[in-house]
């Protein structure tokens, strides 16, 4: 479909470049090195970080922000390492994802991926305890992803039943681990949890 020039947002590039990590966007000269080396493109051939950057430079804000491919980047930084123009491609994509999340929170777009829910669930445990709490993460993420508590439990069981048993029998989680019988089952907490609260309030309040 042809690009509708009157729908382009010429300010989108500045929006990206004003965020930490997005500063070098305009250095891109479309060589495609990022995409050729990408391990995701190898598996999903339509995945194309070069194209996402070009669309951003053109100002195709809506198309970029609602592109589900944003959420299958594995943050492996191969693109960043290979970019001859030091665009820091991995960080640019992270900036675009953050803008997309804000737009979704404002009700302007819909993100077709559970990844924001996953990242939030992960960070909620860090905010609360100061450390990652796997079970807390899963208990928040799966019900939200599936839309109900029951469906969430089912999906979690399907993905993690075998894994959980392995962790149990190897003494990594649960009573066989020695020490506390609920090791790994209960969250590990830091003493200065109030500092975590301050950090998240400050960063998210911005």
């Amino acid at each position: 479909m042809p690009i509708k020039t009157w729908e382009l947002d010429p300010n989108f590039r500045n929006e990206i470049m004003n965020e930490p990590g997005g500063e070098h966007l305009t250095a891109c000269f479309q060589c495609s090195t990022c995409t050729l080396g990408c391990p995701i493109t190898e598996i999903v051939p339509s995945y194309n970080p070069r194209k996402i950057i070009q669309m951003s430079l053109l100002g195709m804000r809506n198309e970029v922000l609602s592109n589900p491919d944003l959420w299958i980047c594995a943050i492996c930084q191969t693109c960043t390492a290979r970019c001859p123009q030091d665009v820091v491609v991995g960080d640019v994509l992270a900036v675009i994802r953050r803008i997309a999340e804000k737009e979704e929170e404002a009700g302007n777009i819909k993100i077709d991926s559970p990844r924001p829910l996953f990242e939030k669930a992960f960070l909620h445990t860090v905010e609360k305890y100061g450390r990652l709490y796997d079970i807390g993460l899963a208990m928040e993420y799966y019900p939200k992803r599936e839309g109900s508590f029951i469906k969430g439990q089912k999906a979690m069981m399907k993905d993690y039943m075998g894994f959980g048993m392995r962790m149990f029998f190897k003494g990594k989680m649960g009573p066989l681990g020695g020490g506390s019988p609920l090791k790994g089952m209960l969250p590990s907490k830091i003493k200065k949890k109030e500092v975590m609260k301050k950090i998240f309030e400050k960063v998210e309040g911005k």
Partner: protein
Amino acid sequence: MSEKKLAYYPGCPSETTAKEQDISTKAVFDKLGVDWAELEDWNCCGAAEAEDPRLVYALNARNLAIAEKDNRDIVTPCSICYYNLARTDKALRADEKLRAEIKEIDASLDYNGTVTPKHVIDFLVNDIGMDELKSKIVKKVEVKVAPYYGCYIGRPPETAFDDPDDPVSMDRLIELIGGENVQFSYMKTKCCGGPLMMTRADIAFEMARKILESAKNAGADCIALACPLCGMMLDAKQPDIEKALDIKFEMPIVYITQLLGLALGIEPNKLGLNKNVVDTKEIVGKVV
């Protein structure tokens, strides 16, 4: 070797899924006579899930500041923790304004840029040094190893301590202990898919499959690695990957500190070799 004492930053998986990495790292430190102490009241680095650099800087400034107060350098066995610590250290050293902003959140985040964060591999190979390690080796570990480095050892360039495409630090350790590195260079730094495991398991499994299959085809007895997320993906999820893709790998996955520990004469159980999901008895059997 740095004269500073070490703050050991284990990272969150050390308490659960990557217990064997934690156990073996500490056992190796003790055997080598490293003066270490666990970083007091450490917090999560934000892993790959904290996408906002400001959040990463704040979380890691606290850990760096704790080590700074004790006049210690930080060593971590986790590649993602290393990346987050190292980029925070760099950013805060370079930008006074940023440092002031972070400090404003809480006085405990006041970091003055005097700590060097290191990955365990970097510390062993470059700080302890190959000669010193060689002098402590008492056993030969005659295994064929696929050395798998993953993402944050050779890239991104700002924090890397080895080559982005063909890193060698782990290869050198494997040679040192009497092992053989199989032909694996094209897979060494390919991502394991870990960050997509909870949201796109199909892609993540395919990424892990390539690594496991390449190691198997190259004739490796095991894959050696240095990141707990890679460990979770390649070891703990290996039976799930086998089931989903209807393939059998039965490929033992060991942390490099576990292999090194064997060569230093440490008992397998004291290296947590009973905690790896895929059985490691065959690997242990090759220690002479």
